[in-house]
């Protein structure tokens, strides 16, 4: 395990630091709240000569991702960051980055989408981008945001994967709050992430290639999409092995799903992102009272770790899934639908309830989490039936 420096800083600072340590060749970026300080601090590193990156100030997120696609196809290691409307504005290029199998790494500060205008945290932006072919990590803390970024570059550039990766952190909660974190020294990170040697670079004039060609009119589009699906499925194993490697270096455990008290849990909450801390706090309180409460935090959302989730939840009596995004008109939030689907093939299935919470940065008070566990205890005890979708904490 390598020596680390303990720092008190924000999630965004740590992501900027992780970018610098990965030494990308190109960072095209556009500022958007609450992501801005990532690219702002990174721009400062470039200005100070602490990293030799071509920093491209583009005129929109659409251009940022276009430039990222171009630079990555040219053979560069490319990183960028965005949030909310910016991520939505990148939508078509997100598909292109994944379709061309370009290992771009992007941080997303999870933030609500308009209307009405809102700059605070929820997962509507990232859930809108969940089917674009990107691998998606979620961070609970600034530390995880840092660790995820370093692991992401290794996963993206793995020859078995070659897909873009999004590392997300909750807007203002994780991006701007000052947190305690351990920072690795540059040399160790450099050794961990390694150098990027692109295979089919456009700038390799000795071996000219052409990217992004036409495959319509009875062409090969379908087969390419199948190859993309194979690659993202295969990435789960790579994510786990890179995670194990980083664990050995950093001393911090990593798994695609991380359980707390799940070994003998009778009631459990499934959660992603920063709210996991609050949930664990209440679970710990309940454990002290003898309630068998558990928490299942999902750290990698794409590829969705179905098997790991089913394995963790199959023995539980009642499960609540907390969604920080809507899927209007669907039978619950996006996380709920997939968790429930993951459990369909289990012989014993827990009762399941879905809570939509914290949209647009609405406070996630401990009281609300306590209420979810109390509902679960009622369901597990046979006192109450699982209800439909619940909006947690609305007036």
């Amino acid at each position, binding site marked *: 395990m390598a020596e680390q420096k303990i720092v008190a800083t924000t999630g965004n600072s740590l992501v900027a630091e992780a970018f610098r340590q990965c030494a990308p060749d190109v960072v095209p970026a556009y500022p958007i709240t609450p992501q801005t300080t990532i690219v702002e601090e990174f721009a400062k590193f470039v200005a100070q000569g602490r990293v030799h990156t071509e920093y491209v100030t583009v005129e929109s997120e659409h251009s940022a991702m276009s430039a990222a696609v171009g630079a990555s196809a040219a053979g560069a290691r490319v990183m960028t960051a965005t949030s909310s409307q910016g991520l939505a504005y990148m939508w078509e290029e997100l598909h292109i980055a994944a379709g*061309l199998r370009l290992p771009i790494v992007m941080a997303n500060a999870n933030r609500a989408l308009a209307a009405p205008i809102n700059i605070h945290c929820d997962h509507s932006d990232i859930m809108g981008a969940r089917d674009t072919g990107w691998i998606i990590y979620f961070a609970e803390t600034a530390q995880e945001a840092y660790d995820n970024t370093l692991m992401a570059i290794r996963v993206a550039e793995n020859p078995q994967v*070659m897909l873009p990766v999004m590392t997300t952190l909750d807007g203002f909660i994780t991006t701007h709050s000052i947190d305690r974190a351990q920072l690795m020294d540059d040399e160790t990170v450099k050794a961990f992430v390694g150098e990027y040697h692109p295979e*089919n670079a456009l700038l390799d004039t000795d071996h*000219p*290639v*052409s990217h992004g060609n036409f*495959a319509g*009119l009875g062409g090969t589009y379908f*087969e390419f999409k199948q*190859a993309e699906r194979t690659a993202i499925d295969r990435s789960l194993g790579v994510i786990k092995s890179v995670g194990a490697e980083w664990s050995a270096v950093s001393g911090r455990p990593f798994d695609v799903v991380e359980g707390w008290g799940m070994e003998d849990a009778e009631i459990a909450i499934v959660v992603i992102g920063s709210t996991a801390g609050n949930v664990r706090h209440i679970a710990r309180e309940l454990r002290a009272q003898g309630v068998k409460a558990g928490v299942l935090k999902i750290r990698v959302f794409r590829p969705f770790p179905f098997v790991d989730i089913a394995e963790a939840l199959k023995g539980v009596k009642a499960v609540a899934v907390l969604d920080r995004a809507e899927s209007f008109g669907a039978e619950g939030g996006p996380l709920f639908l997939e968790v429930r689907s993951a459990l369909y093939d289990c012989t014993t299935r827990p009762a399941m309830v879905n809570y939509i919470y914290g949209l647009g940065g609405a406070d996630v008070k401990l009281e609300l989490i306590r209420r979810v566990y109390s509902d679960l205890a009622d369901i597990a005890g046979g006192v109450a039936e699982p209800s439909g979708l619940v909006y947690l904490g609305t007036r």
Partner: protein
Amino acid sequence: MSKWDISSIDDWKSEDFPRGAMIPEAGNSADYVTGGWRSERPWRDESKCTQCLICWIYCPDSSVVLNDGKVVSFDLDHCKGCGICAHECPSDAISMALEGCELPEVK
């Protein structure tokens, strides 16, 4: 280096294609038959043709075939039927005919 062989591309499975919709070599566009989606084809009246080569200059697909500096035929594997040749021909020697009709004159 041997040329990239795409002769059996219609039978390729997803894992046989190069990653990410890429063409891994240059200078192979002639291997791709691009005339398949043509709805009209050009034909040339040899008696009106003055061999000015305007059609050859304008053809965006290099599909006007010359022999010894003279127009002899059209390359219908690559002609996409855009009609520029017919439009630009100063002596109305080229016209566009519906694809699929009988045209013995077309070589």
